[in-house]
Structures are given as structure tokens and as C-alpha cells.
């Protein structure tokens, strides 16, 4: 495959296909680009293929069709080089019971040419991780932080986080995210974060990508998507059961003469078009949030 220029995109995926068996496709032509310096949240239902996509990015899966480039390299063919360049925090990392945080660093250090023990100590101190603590004795949050330290100590250019903080309580989550954001911003690293929590996404990501039915159904910067997406409250002149909104709007809810429409694009022109529709008595935009966007991208009507 042709190496892409990593200065443009940290990750570039084109028409990626993968299936467990021939009748069970998981990825059906995923296209995704992750610009350098961006933090992208990968969203999707359970079983949508987020972890599979992560595995493809870390060289864990051969894919029959499509191309994947991570920092300009093919992760399947150049798995070792890719893994050396990225930091990866899996959803649940397990270490031997006897292993201390420092011993984990000792295990990892020979595998990463850029590993700096001083950096590991600095990060540990900053995140409040005790290097002499036994990993198995740490709390869930402590383990996540320890793994984060291990993933960042070799100064990776790209961080892959696969639902890493799903089991944390509120305070621990806040502490981890604050630290993570700070670290990402400091060094201008890129990150791909697979998560179910929109709150986490809103807190740290500047872009989202929604994986639905094997494809990326929505991708872009969050603010831009918010601007483009609109919910409109419409009141009709009379009972007009056969009235349908103009495309690309869809009916989210209908109660008599009152409807709620939503659209992911061309919101202003749609509002203008509805304002001139003789069947429409009144139209006004309603509050827009990320959940609506994602729900729409997942093909479901957002909760009112």
C-alpha cells in the first residue's frame, strides 16, 4: 500500500472490510481519517466493531479488503514499527499478580526504543501512581492510570484508547480525564478514543466518528456537526396527516399538529423552506446536543 503522509493524518482507513465468517461481516467499508493533533472519539453500539477496528489499527487483524495506515505505516505488515510508535490502552489490561508498576515498566522498556524511565517517573508522579505498588493491588482507577503512564512513557505520537475508563467512578474518571487531556494538549498528540460515554467524549474529544452497521455513518468535528445538525419544532396549520417534511429532514415525533423534525445538514435552508410552506403555521429550532447527533447517526430517533 502507499504510505500516507503522517503530517496530514495520523490514521487513515479506506474501505476497510473484515468479517468473522463470510456471513457475519463486521466492517463493511470503513472510511476514516484522523488528523494529526486531533482527539477523535469512536462511537457505536455494542458489537458495532469498535474493538475490531482498534485491533486492525494495532496490527492484530489481517483485513481482506481495504487499506489502513497508522502514522504512515501498514499495521499488519509493519506491526512492530507501528506498535513502537503508538500508545495503546486496552479496555482491561491484566498483569501477573506479582508485578509491580515499576516491574511493568522494566518489562516494557526494552521493547520501546523511545522509552524513558525518567518520563515514566514524571508521569507517575503527576498522575499519582506509586511505582512500587503491586499492580494487582491497585484500584480500578489506579490500574487505568498505571496503564496510561505505561502507554505514554515512550512518548508515542498516537494514543489508542479502547473504552479505557468504562469502569471508573465519577471522581476517578474526572481525575484520569483531566490528566489525559492535559498530557494530550501539552505534546500535541493524536488520540483515538473508543467509548460509550458521551460525557467523556464531550469532555476530551474534538472530533467524533460513529460506526454503524460496519461503516462510519458520521464523522467530523463536534462543534461543526452541532452547527450542522438541527431539531425543529413545527406546528401545522391544520390536521394534515399526509404532510411530510422536505428532505433531508426526518420526523422524530408527531403529536397532532405538532411535530419535531431533525436533520444533520442544511438546517438553515430547511428552516427557511418550512417557513414558506403554507401548511406550516410555525417553525423554530430546539436545543441541539451530541446525543441527538449520535442517535441520528445510529439510525435511531433521539429521545425527546
Amino acid at each position, binding site marked *: 500500500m502507499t504510505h500516507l503522509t503522517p503530517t496530514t493524518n495520523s490514521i487513515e482507513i479506506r474501505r476497510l472490510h473484515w468479517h468473522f465468517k463470510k456471513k457475519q461481516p463486521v466492517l463493511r467499508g470503513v472510511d476514516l481519517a484522523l488528523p494529526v493533533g486531533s482527539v477523535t472519539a469512536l462511537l457505536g453500539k455494542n458489537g458495532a466493531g469498535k474493538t475490531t477496528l482498534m485491533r486492525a489499527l494495532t496490527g492484530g487483524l489481517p483485513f481482506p479488503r481495504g487499506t489502513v495506515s497508522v502514522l504512515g505505516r501498514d499495521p499488519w505488515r509493519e506491526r512492530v514499527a507501528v506498535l513502537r510508535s503508538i500508545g495503546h490502552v486496552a479496555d482491561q489490561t491484566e498483569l501477573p499478580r506479582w508485578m509491580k508498576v515499576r516491574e511493568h515498566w522494566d*518489562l516494557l522498556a*526494552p521493547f520501546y526504543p523511545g522509552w524513558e524511565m525518567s518520563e515514566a517517573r514524571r508521569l507517575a508522579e503527576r498522575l499519582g501512581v506509586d511505582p512500587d505498588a503491586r499492580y494487582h493491588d491497585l484500584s480500578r482507577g489506579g490500574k487505568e492510570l498505571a496503564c496510561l503512564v505505561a502507554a505514554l512513557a515512550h512518548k508515542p505520537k498516537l494514543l489508542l484508547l479502547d473504552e479505557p475508563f468504562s469502569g471508573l467512578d465519577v471522581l476517578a474518571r474526572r481525575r484520569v480525564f483531566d490528566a489525559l487531556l492535559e498530557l494530550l494538549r501539552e505534546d500535541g498528540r493524536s488520540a483515538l478514543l473508543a467509548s460509550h460515554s458521551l460525557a467523556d467524549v464531550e469532555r476530551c474529544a474534538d472530533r467524533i466518528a460513529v460506526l454503524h452497521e460496519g461503516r462510519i455513518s458520521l464523522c467530523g468535528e463536534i462543534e461543526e456537526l452541532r452547527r450542522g445538525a438541527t431539531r425543529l419544532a413545527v406546528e401545522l396549520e391544520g390536521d394534515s396527516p399526509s404532510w411530510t417534511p422536505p428532505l433531508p429532514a426526518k420526523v422524530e415525533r408527531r403529536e397532532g399538529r405538532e411535530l419535531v423534525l431533525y436533520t444533520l445538514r442544511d438546517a438553515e435552508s430547511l428552516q427557511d423552506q418550512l417557513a414558506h410552506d403554507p401548511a406550516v403555521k410555525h417553525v423554530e429550532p430546539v436545543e441541539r446536543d451530541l446525543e441527538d447527533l449520535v442517535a441520528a447517526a445510529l439510525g435511531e430517533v433521539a429521545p425527546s
Partner: protein
Amino acid sequence: MNKLRSLLYKEWRDQRTFCLAALAACLLLALGALRIHGSALIGPSMYVDSVLPVSCMIFAMLLATESISRDAQSRVADMLLRLPAPRTSVWSAKLLFVTLAVVAFVLLLLPLDFLLSLANDTGGFAGHQVLAQPMFWSFTAALAAAGFALACVLRRALPAAIVGSLAVAALPFLPMAMLPFGVAAGLDPYRVWDWNYVYLSIWSPQQLACLGLAGFLLGSLLAFSIRHADPLGWRRGLAVAGSVACVFGLASASSMRRALSAFDIPFGDANAGIEQVSPSPDGRFLAVQMRKEWRVNPDWRALVGGDLAWMAEHYEVWLFDRNDSSWSKLGGTYQALLTRFRHGFSQGPWDARGRLSVITSPSAFGNTAGGVQLIDPKSRAVLLAPPIGISMFDALEAVSGLGVWYTTISNSKQSLLTLRWKDCGIEWAIPDDLAFAASPEPGVVFLQRDHQLIRHDMRTGSERVLRSLGRELIRNSIRVSPDGRYVSIFSDGTTTILDAIDGHSVAELPNRARLTSWSDVAGRLCLYATSLGGRGLMWHALDEQGRSTALPTTLRDCEELGAGRLIGFESDRIECMKLDGSERETLYEAKP
């Protein structure tokens, strides 16, 4: 290198408790073996032969299984496989660690092995180079294939089961295919495996069954810890097969190993006895026939049935070279000195040119087809080996040309024994219960008829009465000297030696004296022994003038060593001395 060291350190930290515990267990077993040595429960040699090798292999198998399954089940393997290194390097590190651990395990136990060997003191002879490896591997592989087939049948994976069954059928032929290569490489082909070795093994049927079951269970556990898709059951089948082969195969292999070498009699073994000592004609070599009894494990007898003998006898031939006082053992699994005593005709194992005739068999107890070999005592090379399966009589003739001039044909219906003079084609039938002896002189037979000792000449049919007898002789009571000049008859407890031509009496031995051997020394007639009650035997040499000379030994047996020396021996010792009793030396003595 640092990566490998890092992974190896991780493995060591993971497995060190198991490794140290296994080592401690083996040490305890060894101490136990030392402590109860002599109580016949388990001797150090059995420990060295069986317990240590099996322990090592079980240790290796458990360590390898534990190393993989522990990481797989705790998901630590996921972390390892995400390291920026080829996946094979992770598995290779595990394999290397297991290998190093097993080597260290063996090295740590070797001094113990050595100490136990000293305690048992099995030294003396170098081991034989035998075709052990092909037999061992084919046997183990056959077990593996059987386990594989069984597992596949249980998994209803028919194609794999068929492959396993075919392998079981084919693998026993492997040693046969490899035999020519082994023989070409100079290995000893005269060792075979037979069921006696299982019956005599330290493993009872119950123990073997338990071990096999343990292997199968272990393999099943291993099989079901395999998480990957395995639709045809190949991987699970292989896992079960490997475990069964390791545990059950190795237990059986210990029996096989005993079959191949452990039945060898160590030098000085107090449980082995000297059966026969035969000096070479020039007096340089002593051929010693050793005998050792092995008791069959009664559990096997209960399982197999009453037809299984209680005991098996193992024979070996050792050579003592008087030039350098060295002992050596003839090759082969089972060997005995070929001495013939038939129809009054006796012949020792040495021929006139100083070559030794032995009976040899490829199994340790001589219960498979054996043969006769002619051995050069200096090089211990086999000079002549007639085809296995021909009669001892013909083999004797073939290897040393001893001049046995007749063959016998027995007709049990008519109770007749027909002597056939091979060169002349003359046949002569006599009743088969008749006391008779064939002379080394062709055509001459001595027999008793109508209370008379008669010399019969088959060439002419003439007969001469040598002596009138007071009563009928029993069979085998007539003996002829190797040169055919004398005949001895035993009657009424008295042995009389007669001239073979005219029958005049040359000498009469004291009452109840036993003529043991004719003498090869000029002027000397024979050696005979009289009983000293419970104090052994009194030995005498009888010369041609009928004079007896007392010999200076009271041991069980006595042989001439030239004109001036004597060999006395019994079950556990061999002594050499001059005829006057001076220069007495002990050539061999069993260690208590």
C-alpha cells in the same frame, strides 16, 4: 537480547514457585529412595532409571502447560501479544524458558543421580549401544497416535480419527524400517522388546492404568483450555495425544529402558550367581556364565493369568583376561556358554583354536528365537553366527566343528532312537531308554545290554563286551572322555573308569565321589569331588596310574587352569591358586 531477558524474567517470576516445589518434591523422593534402599520397595537404581526421567518429563509438560494456560486464562497473554515484538518471540521465550528450566532441573538433580548411583554401585561395564531410540520413539509415537485417535473419536472427528488409527497401525513398523540403518551404524541389533519386560517392570498394571488415566485427564484439561475454534477437534486431539504419550508412554518407556539395558548384571551384583567358569585352552581367558533371577510382578500375573511364569532367568557371559586382570562382558542381551553333554559326549565352550561358543538371544530372558555365536575372546567380535533357528546341535557343528559325527532321530511311537552316522549314512536303532554313550571316535557307541557294558562299532556291526555289570545302569551313567580313550560308568554310588578299548579298570573313585570333568592335562585323567558334609567339597585330581591328589579348594566347583593351577568357584566368588595352594588370589567376589 534485553527483550528476551525481560520475557524470561517474567516467566521465571511466574513459575518459580512451581519450579522450586517440583525440585523439592524430587529431592524428597530421592531422600526417600535412599532411606528405604534395601527394603525392596524402591532401590536407587530404580529411582535413577525411572523416577527421575519421568519426573523430568512430567515437570516439562506441566511447566509448558502452566506457562501458556496461566497467561491465556488471566489475559496476561493479551498484554504480551500487544508488545512491539513478533508474536513468535513471545512464544519462543516461553519455549526457551521451559527448555532452560528443564535443563536446570536435570542439572540440579544430576549430582543426586550420581550419589544414588554410587549408593547402588552399578559400575563395572560400559553400556551397550543398542537400537533403543527407534523403538522408544515408535512406541511413544504409537501411544500418541492412539490417544489422538481416541480423542478424535470422542470428538466425532472421523477423518482425524482415521488418520490417528492408521498411524497406530503404521508406527510399529518404524523400528523394522530403521533397523538396517542402526546395524549399519554399528549398533547392536540383538535386543528386542517382549512382554516379559512389562511384567517385570516396577509398574504394576494398576499404576500404569492410573498414569494413563492421569495423562488422559491432563490432556483433556489442556484440550478444553484451548479457546480457539477447533471444528474438527484436531487441536484437542493433539493435546490429549501429547499428554497421554508423555505420561503413559514414559512410564512404559521405563519398562522398555529396563528391557534394553537394566536387566544387565552389574559387576559384583550380589543377586547374580556364577553358574560356570571355563578357562580357555591357553589359560589366558576365563569365560564366566552369570545368572540372575527376576521375579514377575504378581499383579501382572493376576492380570495375565497363571500361564505367566513367576520367574525369569537372565544369563550373561563375562570374560576375564588374566594378562591384564580385566573383566569385560560379551555383547548381546542374553548369552550363555555353549557346553554340550549328550549321550555321554561332553564338550566345553572353547574350541581348540581358543574361540568361544555361546548361545545368544535378542531378548533378556532367552525366550525369543536365539542362536549360536563363535566369539574371538581378544576382540570379542562375533566370528561366526549361524542363522537363528537351526538346532543347537547343528549350530554347534557349524561354529566349531566339534566332530559330532552323528545325528539322532527319535521315534516316540516305537520308543526307538536312531543314530545316523552322517558321513557314512549308516543308521542304527536302539531303544530310547537304553543307557548309552557315543564316543568321539566316529561309529563307536558304548551301551549296556543284558547287564553288560558293550562297545558297538557301527562300521562293522561288531560288538565287544567290556565289563559285566551287577545291575542295570541308568541313563546318562556312561560317559566317554573327550579323547575317546576312557569310559566311566556310575553304578551303586561308585564311579569306575575303564579303558575304552579292552575294558580293563583304570581307576575306581571312592564311594559317592562325583566325577566332574575329564582332564586336559597330559597324564591326568579327571577331577572328582567328595563331600565334606556341610563344609563344602574335597577336590581331587586323578592321574592315569590311578593315583589321587587332593586339591586345595573346598568351593562348589573346580576347573583346571593348565597343569599347575586351579580355578575354584562358587556362586559369588572365583579363586585361582597353584595346586599346592600357594599364590591364592580372588579373581571375583560379589559385593555384599
